[in-house]
């Protein structure tokens, strides 16, 4: 039997946390209202962190809290009290980028993981942090599989690696485009994604060199499904999914696909790359994904030259609130109607397709279309569903 790595998912709030755990994440990472990147995300209040830690314990899962902003002088006084609070509510580890937090976290007794913001990609740096008491390093997304393997072999430190999601086009931590263009601090949670903007390209003499499509710094997303078996064989401790600002549908879909792929490989010992899984992953994000630096094959095809078109995902139709007497109570997330071909999926559900033939509103009147955001309706479904199962467009 192979070592099974941890599957680590993002969660922007308690709902997403529960979904991530339920759909197969072994651990989640969240941000507090202070000291956390992704200031735009709906971060957790202190009380919500406690609730999240309680949920994690109840479900026998792990919870990590990011404390990964570039600290400024004014925050230092509040830091220690915050770390003490995280210890008190029993989070499993904190994820830091500023090494000066290490002595305080050690004193408080918190387990420390080093954020990818440090862009660590060699065994000497990992050795340094190991000596300081850091138990896990989140490697830079620029690391190749050979580099990861060598680091694990030479240091024996727990290694966490991103397997899926959006990428910084720069080394993480080495971009302040957002600071300069919008005054929003990239390394303090204000990233405005300037890398996805369009630019004209000019020569030394300021002649326009722009090609058919504008210049951009934007890279395609990351998907490591293709190399998942090799990553497991390399004894990576934790496989991380990016995206604390992602929807519950995205989290449920991505987590469940990686859950299945990991479990299938570990139980069978043979890996069959499933292109159907990859299609599902593509559909949920609407952005191309590649294996990035893992196989060292980065080139012009790794980049996006499509302008600023970002398609929002309309596949997610609703979430199941309850199921009684052959009717599923559903909260709408995108427009659907009678006659729609849909697919139901869930953590303990064998995915099945279905044609909607009866919809009732909350007063049990028959209706044909569900067009209002978060409208609650009943659909007649012959197979038993469970709370937090989901309904999507059949592909």
């Amino acid at each position, binding site marked *: 039997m192979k070592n099974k790595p941890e599957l680590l998912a993002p969660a922007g709030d308690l709902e997403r946390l529960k979904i991530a755990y339920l759909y197969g994440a072994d651990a989640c990472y969240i941000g507090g209202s202070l000291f956390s990147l992704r200031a735009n995300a709906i971060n957790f209040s202190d009380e919500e962190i406690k609730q999240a830690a309680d949920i994690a314990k109840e479900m026998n899962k792990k919870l990590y809290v990011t404390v990964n902003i570039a600290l*400024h*002088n004014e925050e230092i006084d509040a830091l220690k009290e915050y770390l003490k609070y995280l210890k008190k509510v029993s989070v499993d580890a904190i994820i830091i980028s500023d*090494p*000066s937090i290490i002595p305080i976290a050690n004193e408080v007794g918190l387990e420390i993981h080093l954020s990818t913001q440090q862009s660590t990609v060699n065994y000497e*740096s990992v050795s340094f942090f190991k000596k300081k008491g850091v138990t896990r390093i989140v490697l830079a997304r620029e690391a190749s599989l050979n580099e990861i393997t060598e680091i694990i072999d030479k240091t024996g430190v727990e290694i966490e690696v991103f397997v899926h999601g959006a990428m910084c086009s720069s080394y993480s931590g080495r971009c302040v485009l957002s*600071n300069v263009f919008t005054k929003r601090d990239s390394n303090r949670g204000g990233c405005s994604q300037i890398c996805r903007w369009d630019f004209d390209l*000019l020569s030394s003499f300021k002649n326009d060199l722009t090609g058919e499509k504008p210049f951009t*710094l934007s890279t395609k997303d990351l998907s490591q499904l293709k190399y998942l078996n090799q990553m497991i064989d390399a004894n990576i401790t934790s496989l991380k999914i990016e995206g604390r600002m992602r929807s519950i549908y995205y989290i449920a879909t991505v987590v469940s696909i990686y859950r299945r792929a990991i479990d299938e490989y570990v139980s069978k010992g043979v890996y069959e790359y499933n292109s159907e899984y990859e299609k599902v992953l593509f559909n949920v994000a609407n952005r191309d994904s590649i294996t990035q630096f893992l196989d060292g094959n980065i080139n*012009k095809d790794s980049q996006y030259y499509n302008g600023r078109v970002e398609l929002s995902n309309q596949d997610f139709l609703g979430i199941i609130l309850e199921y009684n007497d052959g009717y599923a109570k559903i909260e709408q997330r995108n427009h659907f109607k009678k006659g729609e071909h849909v697919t139901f999926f869930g953590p303990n559900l064998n995915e099945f397709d279905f044609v909607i033939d009866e919809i009732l509103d909350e007063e049990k009147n028959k209706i044909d279309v569900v067009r209002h955001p978060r409208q609650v309706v009943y659909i007649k479904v012959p197979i038993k569903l469970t709370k937090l199962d989901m309904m999507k467009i059949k592909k």
Partner: protein
Amino acid sequence: MNLIVMPGSKKEIKKCYELVDGYILSLENLSVNVNFSYKEKELFNEIEFLKSKNKKVYVSLNKNMHNDDIKFLTEVLFKLEESNIDGVFFYDVSLVNIKNRNNLKINLVWNQEHMTTNYMTSEFWYQNGVSSTMLSYEITKDEINQISKSSSSNIFVPIFGYQPIFTSKRMLLTYYKEEFDIIDDSKVNYIHKEGSDYPIIEENDTFTVFTAKMFNGLPFVNELVSDYFVFNSIFLNSDEVHEILIKIKKEGIKSASSMIDEKYNTDTGFLNKKTIYKVKKDEE
């Protein structure tokens, strides 16, 4: 004012060394965010020349080190220890581990660009064998002074020149030219947005974007507490650098600063401008 210069060309050093206190030199394959770097032998010759002129000499080994860089990096650090330089600017923590494990007598300058933003981190590195800190360009004058006063480290503050704002292992310029069959041999290109031109370069397998405006912090020099000020002359030719340095030497900072503001498109960076930490809901 102790003025340490990151030179924009080799020619500039020969022309201007008498006007400055020292230089930060770059080494091929281990330095990034520069428009030129020395081969190993050239570097040691330049160090020897500058030491003979009683100048301070620092070497910037500021790339994100990968496993394959470690052997060369270690060899270079041993040689630099012998060369009597004043310090090594670094980004990657591997340098601290190599120095401490081998008891190298070499001063390290923590230069993690955008992450050197508070006094506690400066102090952490000091306790771990790093004697100096180069502060971020993105912090305010008050923050700089608080760090300088609270830290045991020697402090370097960026004071002039185009600043790196994006560093990538991806050769984004080369990829784009390949994708759209663009023939161009510019040494510096620009990406243009909303009336501003941002210099971009590829050097030592690294792609860098710089600020569109030349950072001119010289008017604040007398208000800033710092051991050294770093003058980055990237994208300026040796005549331009000489003109500025002569002006500083002969007529003082105020006069030099006025000339710079008249001649170039400048700003004062974040010295008087705080970045937004928490984005309010209605600002998203």
